[in-house]
């Protein structure tokens, strides 16, 4: 199976791990991530103003290219996923945005939200299947108590992202189980880490991350996993009860026995 793949800017620089472990795991699981040619930054945040078009175009370009190849579009970064999924929803359901975006794009066939946008975790759940993943694990993370940190971007707004139950998600917990670990459920796994606010309001972001960390470690987590480079950065700035934070792909690669390969490369 081949998917169009949109890495996003952070995954080519500060979050290379998230990307490299993801690609290696995909290979080990038998699917291919074909990087979109000349992709452009998604902008990091979804433009909320209903009259904004230009800031949505980079997503439309990626979506369009995936459609032309007849492939689903896969993302790893939570932020890219959020932005592209929501822009795709606009293109599908908001006539005004669709018309105006297509006016800019001048495509042969106008884009109307045909591409299916999947997060890597959704590929694991819905395409590969956690059962199959479990069978392919050579290095189970037995005994590891892992807290999933979802953050906001993957889950909300629930109706558009349609990723999982936004208030009580299970996909990452199921993932942790599949790679042999023990998921730790804690209530702040879907609360915000502070996001972009940490650039200027470092204290605010820190206190939010402290709450998350305290809650997770209070329920017995030994480490956290995330899909978002910004969440990882913010969580690492936490002062209280500091737990190690990993990209979920790193643990996946480890469980699949391909981590060392990547590290050597």
């Amino acid at each position, binding site marked *: 199976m081949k998917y169009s793949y949109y890495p996003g800017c*952070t995954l080519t620089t500060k979050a290379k791990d998230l990307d490299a472990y993801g690609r290696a795991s995909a290979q080990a699981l038998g699917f291919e991530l074909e990087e979109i040619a000349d992709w452009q*930054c998604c902008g990091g945040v979804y433009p909320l*103003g*209903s009259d904004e078009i230009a800031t949505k175009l980079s997503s439309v370009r990626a979506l369009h290219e995936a459609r032309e190849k007849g492939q689903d579009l896969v993302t790893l970064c939570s932020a890219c996923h959020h932005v592209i999924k929501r822009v795709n929803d606009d293109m599908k359901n908001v006539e005004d945005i669709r018309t105006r975006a297509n006016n800019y794009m001048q495509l042969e066939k106008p884009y109307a939200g045909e591409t299916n946008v999947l997060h890597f975790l959704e590929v694991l759940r819905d395409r590969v299947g956690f059962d199959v993943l479990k069978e392919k694990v050579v290095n189970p993370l037995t005994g590891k108590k892992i807290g999933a940190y979802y953050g*906001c971007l993957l889950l909300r707004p629930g109706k558009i992202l349609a990723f999982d139950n936004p*208030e009580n998600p299970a996909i990452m917990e199921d993932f942790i189980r599949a790679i042999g670990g023990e998921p730790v459920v804690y209530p702040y796994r879907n609360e915000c880490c502070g*996001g972009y606010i940490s*650039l200027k309001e470092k204290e605010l972001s820190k206190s939010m991350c402290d709450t998350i960390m305290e809650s997770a470690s209070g329920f017995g987590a030994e480490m956290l996993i995330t899909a978002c480079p910004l969440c990882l950065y913010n969580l690492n700035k936490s002062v209280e009860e500091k737990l190690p934070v990993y990209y979920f792909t790193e643990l996946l690669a480890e469980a699949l026995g391909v981590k060392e390969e990547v590290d050597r490369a």
Partner: protein
Amino acid sequence: MITGKKQAELIKEISGVNPLKCMKCGKCSATCPSYNEMDIKPHQFVSYVLNEDIEALMQSESLWKCLSCFACVERCPRDVKPGKLIDAARQLLIRQRGQEYLSPDEVPELLDPEIPQQLLVSAFRRYRR
């Protein structure tokens, strides 16, 4: 000078929010992680727009404290989406007055080696034109 009425119309248009749907339950403010940092609280945004007191909104510190975490949007029982209202007020300020909360000059001192690109891009998008 654009009137408050016109500004309120603009905010409603940009955000796509109908503030009249609000039943004033306060769930948005109950849920907001930045609540304590905000001078105008999320639930008050609705009444400021209804009262067409947009000038006060645009002066508000709250514009820069919203995390766009969408907790208020997700949990609002009336589908009002206060987060979008806040963003629309911010847009108005940035677009009309060219104001910004982040200037390129101050970036170097904010940087640290681990900062992901995503953070800079997001902050620029939200804080500036």
